[in-house]
């Protein structure tokens, strides 16, 4: 079976391509960009998708997702997480190791890979833990996990607080040419904090997490990356201070990359008002000044990629006192419209936005995805950037609906998602 995607605006930053064109998919791969389609359309073995007025781009790549399986299947499974990804236009997702058991050895990695192959509808790449049990004490089975399919290491959710352990991790990963991915937070400074430290936390009487909590560890991690020469990737940058530190480090040639999430470039800590636990995440939503710094960081490429930090939690877990609610929100299905808002606001060009969701994140973890080059896997998203949607719980494919964007009117709708030439989502 072949598929012809006809008449769309194809934007593929990996090939610097932006033109009205057709794509022919054969045997799961991008075959060609045919100039004429009449003959193909008459061929009964060719399924035609009309993409007129739509954008056709490489399927999105999210390098920061929590799939919750094994261990927390009531929040999300590899299967439901993949469905949510496909509905959001993602064809490749990278899952963090803080499952139960933690992905700190090859047997857990193999379990995830097997489940993803049999039940997942998009490409799944796992991240292994840096340290055993994410305890920050001794190195996890990094080489074996790499062999089993891990594309990077991270103790996401918690930082490696011991700088010597981090140094060894950063030295060790260079044998496999994978990056250390950092959740930057000084846990002593964060203390019992549950939201950004500022006027809103003071007013609500909630313990705050200062920006310095993030800035200190970003600074330390950059320093250790300089010492060791390792590749460092900084997760979910939320503060103006971090953006400044990363920018300076890049300028002097440190091998550091970074990502921003749609919630950090869209919302501020005001969203926590009335103790909205769907606005509780870590790092927390910051102030307007920080939000604008994150946007500026995306604009000047200090922040390389857009990632969702998709973190599903069940409704019961969120409907509790703010202090007791878990950190995190889902993000796969709102990422495109929220990112398109940056395009509408003329902060990013549509090409640049797509690049930050396709080839750039793929390159950070050397996934070989995020392209429509002839011969590559036909992972494609077709979306209407102007179509208005209202985010509601019924349309969400994730097992969880913990999102502060429920009820929002946004622009941008995924029409079709294809993985290896197979349609895995249609609106």
């Amino acid at each position, binding site marked *: 079976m072949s598929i012809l995607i006809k008449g769309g605006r194809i934007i593929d930053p990996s090939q610097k391509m932006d033109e009205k064109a057709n794509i022919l998919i054969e045997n799961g791969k991008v075959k060609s960009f045919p100039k004429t389609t009449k003959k193909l359309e008459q061929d009964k073995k060719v399924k035609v998708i009309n993409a007129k007025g739509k954008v056709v781009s490489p399927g999105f790549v999210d390098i920061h997702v929590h799939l919750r399986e094994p261990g927390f299947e009531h929040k999300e499974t590899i299967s439901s997480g993949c469905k949510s990804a496909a509905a959001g236009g993602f064809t490749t997702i990278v899952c963090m190791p803080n499952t139960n058991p933690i992905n700190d050895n090859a047997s857990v990695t193999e379990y995830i890979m097997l489940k993803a192959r049999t039940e997942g509808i998009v490409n799944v790449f796992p991240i292994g833990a840096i340290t055993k049990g994410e305890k920050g004490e001794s190195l996890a089975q990094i080489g074996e996990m790499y062999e089993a399919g891990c594309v990077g290491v991270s103790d996401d959710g918690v930082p490696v607080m011991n700088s010597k352990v981090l140094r060894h991790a950063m030295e060790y990963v260079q044998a496999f040419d994978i990056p250390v991915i950092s959740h930057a937070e000084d846990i002593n400074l964060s203390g019992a904090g549950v939201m950004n*430290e*500022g*006027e809103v*936390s*003071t*007013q*609500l*009487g*909630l*313990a705050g997490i200062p920006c310095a909590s993030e800035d200190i560890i970003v600074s330390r991690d950059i320093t250790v990356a300089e010492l060791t020469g390792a590749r460092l990737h900084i997760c979910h940058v939320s503060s103006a201070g971090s953006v400044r530190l990363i920018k300076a480090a890049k300028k002097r040639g440190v091998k550091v990359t970074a990502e921003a999430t749609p919630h950090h470039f869209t919302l501020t800590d005001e969203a926590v008002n*009335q*103790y909205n636990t769907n606005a509780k995440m870590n790092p927390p939503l910051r102030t307007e000044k920080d939000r604008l710094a994150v946007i500026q960081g995306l604009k000047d490429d200090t922040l390389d990629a857009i990632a969702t930090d998709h973190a599903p939690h069940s409704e*019961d877990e969120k*409907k*509790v*006192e*703010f*202090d*007791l609610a878990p950190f995190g929100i889902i993000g796969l299905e709102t990422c495109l419209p929220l990112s398109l808002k940056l395009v509408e606001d003329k902060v990013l060009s549509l090409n640049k936005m797509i690049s930050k969701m396709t080839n750039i994140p793929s390159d950070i973890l050397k996934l070989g995805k995020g392209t429509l080059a002839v011969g590559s896997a036909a992972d494609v998203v077709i979306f209407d950037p102007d179509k208005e949607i209202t985010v509601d719980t019924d349309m969400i494919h994730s097992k969880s609906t913990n999102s502060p964007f429920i009820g929002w009117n946004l622009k941008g709708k995924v029409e079709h998602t294809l993985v290896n030439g197979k349609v895995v989502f249609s609106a």
Partner: protein
Amino acid sequence: MTFQRKHILGLEELSAEEITLILDTAESMKEVSERDVKKVPALRGVTVCNLFYEPSTRTRSSFEIAEKRLSADVLNFTSSHSSVTKGETLLDTARNLEAMGASVIVIRHPLSGAPWLLANELDSSIINAGDGSHEHPSQALLDLFTIREIKGKIKGLKVVIAGDILHSRVARSNIWGLSKLGAEVRVVGPPTLIPKYLKQTKAKTFYNLDKAIEGADVVMMLRIQMERQDSEYFPSLREYSRFFGLKRDKLKKAKKNVTVMHPGPINRGIELSSDIADDAGSVILDQVSNGIAVRMAMFYLVASARRNQ
């Protein structure tokens, strides 16, 4: 004006007019409390539940007396601190109480925002009896009532709130209430216990008690939580009381007729030297009896707002 609110969650959300209405209503409630038969039928047939997740005999008794003077049926539910993290969720507990007929729930909880959770999910009226480090509206209202009674007004007064502002719900509610009614609010304490972000409240920050007290009409001393002395907020209780405790000589900087208040119970010799504590005793007991009148007013207004909806 008429009171439109189904819940009283904090003074931050109340307007100056609403606060004044509560205080005015409390005056007629105080008159009820001075009668031989201290009972009116305003809440007859209404079941009020006192849901206390923190032990506080004082506040709970005050609420209970207020409820009974308004002829409400009273249900007490007390739960230890440990049950906050273990077993049944707060929401399930409250839903059960609602199913038993409670239409007003008074909640005291060690975590900020717990009353908001109930207000968002239940049909009952929620009255906040103190939540975490957030607000303690009934305490602040009784403080405002007492100040107004003694000074005849609140507008233009210089009011000092001293001590652990960071963790104090009494301080937060009072800062909102006092500044909304036109007082100048000054907060003072060790810098570790003064939040860095008080801008939106218009309170002025001091780290020196002498300077803060200059020209003050009212000095409100907060209770220091004894468990805080083990953390790194200040070096020792001795040092705390030396720099931030109220002693006779410091009071000289205040206005002559300065009123010293304390939400109680006092740690004698720490927040207040004993002689001031005894001088202030009469006001502190006024605060206690005014507490009943203010709480009666809160119930009365919320119940009539419910009926009108």
